[in-house]
């Protein structure tokens, strides 16, 4: 099937994670979460292993994983900064914030800094519209983000 099962990929580890969750109803999403939690990402080699254990096709598992932007094929940087680009935040100036963040981090959305310090991502609504523009740093939401706040985050994640 043309897949290079590279040497550092631990199929047994994936199998063990699948085994932990296989009795859940609808186990695929919990398994994908657990794999990402464990390995920091979901390497493509893991998908056929999961598919086989769950008796699904590779295509189906790929379809589910690729549907959710939070599931990543490559590990993220040490910190993950998400900036909300949904309607409420846009109306409160999040486009400018986003541009500022990009130039500050010197990366675009979806990219990870070459030194692995930070990954910048767009997100569409954090449910924090009342405090727009909003962002999220390593899972913690932040309201009323401005350029100064981005600068602070930047120096924090680079340290």
């Amino acid at each position, binding site marked *: 099937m043309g897949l290079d099962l590279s040497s550092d990929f631990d199929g047994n580890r994936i199998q063990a994670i699948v085994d932990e969750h296989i009795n859940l109803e609808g186990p695929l999403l919990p398994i994908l979460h657990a794999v990402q939690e464990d390995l920091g990402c979901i390497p493509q080699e893991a*998908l056929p292993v999961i598919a086989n254990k769950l008796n699904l096709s590779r295509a189906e598992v790929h379809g589910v994983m690729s*549907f959710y932007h939070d599931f990543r094929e490559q590990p993220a940087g040490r910190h993950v900064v998400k900036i909300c680009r949904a309607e409420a935040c846009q109306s409160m100036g999040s486009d400018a914030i986003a541009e500022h963040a990009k130039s500050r981090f010197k990366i675009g959305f979806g990219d990870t800094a070459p030194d692995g310090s930070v990954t910048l991502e767009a997100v569409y609504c954090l449910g924090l519209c009342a405090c727009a523009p909003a962002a999220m740093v390593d899972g913690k939401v932040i309201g009323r983000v401005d350029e100064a706040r981005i600068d602070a985050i930047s120096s924090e994640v680079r340290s």
Partner: protein
Amino acid sequence: MRLIQETDFGTPASRSEKTVMLTIDGFEVTVPEGTSVMRASQEVGISVPKLCATDMVDAFGSCRLCVVEIEGRNGTPSSCTTPVADGMVVHTQTGKLKDIRRGVMELYISDHPLDCLTCAANGDCELQDMAGAVGLRDVRYGYEGDNHVVARNSDQPNMRWMPKDESNPYFTYDPSKCIVCSRCVRACEEVQGTFALTIEGRGFDSRVSPGMHEDFLSSECVSCGACVQACPTATLTEKSVIEIGQPEHSVVTTCAYCGVGCSFKAEMRGEELVRMVPYKDGKANRGHSCVKGRFAYGYANHQDRILNPMIRDTIDEPWREVSWDEALSFTTNKLKKLQKDHGKNSIGVITSSRCTNEETYLVQKLTRAVFGNNNTDTCARVCHSPTGYGLGQAFGTSAGTQDFDSVEHTDVVIVIGANPTDGHPVFGSRLKKRLREGAQLIVIDPRRIDLVRSPHIKAAHHLPLRPGTNVAVLTALAHVIVTEGLMDEAFIRERCDWDEFQDYAEFAADERHSPEATEQLTGVPAEELRKAARLFAKGGNGAIYYGLGITEHSQGSTAVMALANLAMMTGNIGRKGVGVNPLRGQNNVQGSCDMGSFPHELPGYRHVKLPEVRAIFESLWGVEIDSEPGLRIPNMLDAAVDGTFKGIYIQGEDILQSDPDTHHVAAGLAAMECVVVHDLFLNETANYAHVFLPGSTFLEKDGTFTNAERRINRVRKVMSPKNGYADWEITQLLANAMGGNWSYSHPSEIMAEIAATTPSFANVTYDLLEEKGSIQWPCNEAHPDGSPIMHVDGFVRGKGKFIVTEYVATDERTGPRFPLLLTTGRILSQYNVGAQTRRTANVAWHEEDRLEIHPHDAEQRGIRDGDFVRLASRAGETSLRALITDRVAPGVVYTTFHHPGTQANVITTDYSDWATNCPEYKVTAVQVTPSNGPTEWQVEYDAQAKQSRRIVHAEPAE
């Protein structure tokens, strides 16, 4: 002639018997409950615009084009997902709906190329049709922004654009034309059951993805083409359509590969075949197909095909191309001389399970009426002859009891000695669909076939028996049913002979048949077997499907009887969802048996010894028919070696490659003085032939095939025979050259003769086939419309007969020299000896036969995956490459037999079924050792084949 356009009702038919009345655009409509508003509209000829709906798959409701307004309901529901309700008043065209539809289409077209005039789907594009239907006149969004259409956006590479995937040999995937309607994904899931496609990403990023963003060829795709058929645009398109253009007329015909007998529309441009599209009214396939039927017809134009008759005096000479007259007089002189010198029984025929009923009928008539003997046999000898015998004994008729639709009503299925997803793929898909709906499956097979476990399918029980122990396992199942009191006593008392059942029950109940007692022998865990027996007996409608893994054994007939016993004792005969169903290997193996191909039977399975049966044919043919049965294929070969059988006419069968013990077949053929091969290609048998008569393909002739469900399907000529004559005409030419005085001008006249002489075909005519599409025999006074299900009110023979099935181990046993058991089978992309499929692009999936061997056995022998190995049995040896897999159990090896270079039948022995001589292909004791390459036999054989295939072409006429 015109292009047949089948109405697409948008959603599948509802099976409900309750009806609902509603009003659509002012018309009153009555439809079954559960029907969609879309389908109800189409029933009265109102087409609601649609893109994501098609009646092969369930409604999805994603395109938002089929919205309607329903009085008393809010909003604009999609008509495909809204079921009808009594008294509903629906409007399919209002100002509001028109606006919505135009808006939706505008969005679709804003991300779709505008190359309609040069697009392969031009003239067959639903997107184009819908743009017309909704009156799209303008796309206000422009084409400048984000899109999937162009490779470069103002000098920047467009990251959303993806190049065409042309990896599949038969169709292309052009993502730039995709509207993400999911029809392909759903067809792959719901119709084919492979789940090879998905929609990756979300929103504007959504794309159709084979596997994990792979190309089609390396994905899980099995190339059935259901996605191509479902695609409303040019995204998935047959390469033949891209190359040739749209067809202008079509003809419904029947596939010439396996015994499923799928109906296809051959879509033509003039005499050129553009594509094969499964016909939704085809009752065997219901609009589905596999990679062979839909795509693998290229052999008809392959350069290897022989189009002129050829002769030679001895087989070491090159072939000489000659005229038909010369070939026929050469043949006639030889055959007549042989009969004069060696007696009338010194020649015979082999009929073909690949040819039509009418052609088969003529070939057996040739030997019976013109040669004056009963020396006729057919390849069913080597596949389903035990089915004929076993089911004939138990039920009174030799055929399968059900139609394929029956699988939709089954609750528990036993699949034994068959691999439907490879061998009978369209039935495999229909079975998988039923399994996904909740039916349970018991697989009895030495190998872990795909049905044991593949996406969304899992057998409740897999009994991995040791090859050769079918009868022991089946009797053990009966043991559990009898001793645990799981049988259907009422059924047995009413339908079967109770005393015979008592005898059988006593036999089966004997402790030596218990699962525990036979476990050592069969390798099947006793507890698993007990559970399987209980499930089958008490799980609802129980159906048995079996293949050559049952019949091709020294106890093939006994195993068929054991299956009949199981069905009878559990009351699983005579209604929908049950039955004993042989999966026939070849398109017309049922028909060739029906047509009197066997040496002891006249058409309709009536013994030649019966004077009243002979009288029917004698009075019609004006000849006397020999009352002695003739020779079976193995007897012909033995007699040839002994010097008493001298000449043979073989239509469409490659006995050298397909029959067991190749050395013996070769010796028999070499000993004959006139071997006439009538085929498309210089097959392996032709290496020993003196006359080659070029055959015609199923596309080039009229006739009928009878599939595994006894369904007589029409084969229709769509192009002129490239060799000049249809096969039935060639047999007639030969018969007349021999003094036969036949005058058939169309196969319908041959069918009329069959109907006039054979009670089960009494009412069959081409007119009736035209009217009904197809008919399942028996079709006579008692069953004027044919018989979808047999033995409904009682068995054909009267009372069902239980027959004691004592297990007798085959003489073919493993020992120190040959410690492994070899069993054989087929693969999806190739067909039998591969004469056709090897000459198509299907070789992309299977270039060579491989030997499947368990890692444990491989390691012991120092064999790595892909190594050349020597495979030796008591009969001979060959070599091929190994494939290490745990699909086979330790101690068992497996191979396919599609390639002549492999010569798997050099290995198989000449052991055969006790009743019918069906060879024991499925069990051979072998040894596997590392090897460097082809064996001496393979090298010699290859040299002989090359030598034998030389042709001296005729000078063109002045």
